């Protein structure tokens, strides 16, 4: 069995989704931790120092390339799998299956993922792109990202879109976290139960932490 055969089989495609998913979850932990520095409420001093470390250091910048590769792989593979899976039924049922045994968000990973993708385009054009353009896409000087957050999140519609984006991410994670581990072969009951609980906890923390960031600026909780 060649590598191509392995990773293009239905199980192999799931493995790609699982591995890239876990990689993106690790990124989320770094992202939320760094962004949480805004709550130091020191006018963005700590946050901008963290952003400078990530943006002007060669190691995170090389990892950033890996992050994009993982992200693109997850998006392209996910969309292709969704389209392929949707085509397998042939003639649709006249009656609905309902929700026996499955949660709505586990059946809606493609839709939730697409919403996250749309949100990501907005999010990156708000922050990542202007910042990297200012750096000429090398290790130059960044813009004041804290000030940029403050102006971006002064508009209500932006805050609403960001909060909705965070909730899409949260539900995507609620299924994706535990599903990724099952895909990688974790079948022991005690580990599965533990990972499912951790997954739910992680999803809630990530959703609330990220959603609170635009709200904190909009509601003027921060200097």
């Amino acid at each position, binding site marked *: *069995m060649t590598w191509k*055969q*392995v990773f293009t*089989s*239905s*199980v*192999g*495609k*799931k*493995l790609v989704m699982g591995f890239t998913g876990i990689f993106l979850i690790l990124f989320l932990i770094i992202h939320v931790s760094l962004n949480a520095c805004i709550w130091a409420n020191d006018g963005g001093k700590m946050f901008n120092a963290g952003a400078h470390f990530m943006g002007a250091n060669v190691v995170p910048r090389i990892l950033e390339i890996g992050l994009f590769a993982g992200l693109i792989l997850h998006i392209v593979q996910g969309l292709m*799998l969704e389209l*392929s*899976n*949707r*085509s*397998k*039924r*042939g*003639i*649709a*049922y*006249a*009656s*609905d*299956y*309902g929700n*026996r*045994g*499955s*949660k709505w968000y*586990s*059946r809606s*990973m493609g839709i939730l993922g697409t919403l996250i993708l749309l949100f990501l385009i907005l999010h990156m054009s708000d922050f990542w792109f202007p910042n990297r353009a200012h750096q000429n896409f090398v290790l130059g000087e960044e813009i004041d990202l804290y000030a940029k957050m403050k102006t971006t999140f002064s508009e209500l519609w932006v805050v609403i879109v960001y909060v909705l984006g965070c909730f899409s991410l949260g539900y995507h994670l609620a*299924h994706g976290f*535990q*599903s990724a581990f*099952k*895909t*990688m*072969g*974790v*079948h*022991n*009951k005690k580990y*599965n139960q533990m990972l499912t609980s951790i997954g739910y906890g992680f999803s809630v923390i990530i959703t609330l932490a990220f959603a609170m960031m635009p709200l904190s600026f909009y509601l003027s909780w921060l200097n």
Partner: protein
Amino acid sequence: MKFDLNNDKLYRMEHYNMNLTVKVWRQKNSKDKGGFVSYQVKDISSEMSFLEMIDVLNEKLIVEGAEPIAFDHDCREGICGQCSLYINGKPHGPWMANTTCQLHMRAFKDGDTIVVEPWRAGAFPVIKDLMVDRSAFDRIIQAGGYISVNTGNAVDGNSLPINKDHADASFAAAMCIGCGACVAACKNSSAMLFLSAKVSHLALLPQGEPERKSRVLNMVAQMDKEGFGACTNTGACEATCPKEISISNIARLNKEYLFSSLTSDK
């Protein structure tokens, strides 16, 4: 759904008769477009099985000179895996851990309309009416769901020590009757629960060890060739399975596949 004697809709035990409207998918052959036809059935006993209700309807159709409804069935004891039917949006009907032949008419009440469809999946084409071609499952088994050597007669109980947990898990996986309800319930029409049950059944026993790697690789390749979808771990298959095959078998299949593909020589 727990066993609940107070829920008269599901477990009403006293005998009663009912009149029903049955909306059945009729399709002359695999080329025909097909469509729903509504039938009125009268004086159906609550003690009949669902298939007996269709038998009654078919007798009526034959007397009237119409074509009877074609549907799969064999043992009518819930063990052969032949019966199918997507009843009111549920493979094998509303009861949990149950096959259509063991679904009794006490699950319905007088005046109900019941919608009956065949399993829907590109890999399970309709042959006629409610009958689908499930030979894709046979070809998956032929790709590796066996052990190649003759194991002979049963040996003494403890001559081949087998971990009790593995033996139990293997037996639970071997309960799969290959009916295809998992495919019918899955939003992706994936056959992963079926395949994982067959792989787990043999991977957990010493007799299955020599062909462990080639089995899982070949069976997954055949499943993909047959046109089933990929699994997204939603859990609908497990909730629908008449034999309550656990979704943990799918995780075990993933482990077997990853390990086998990384370590196989080919």
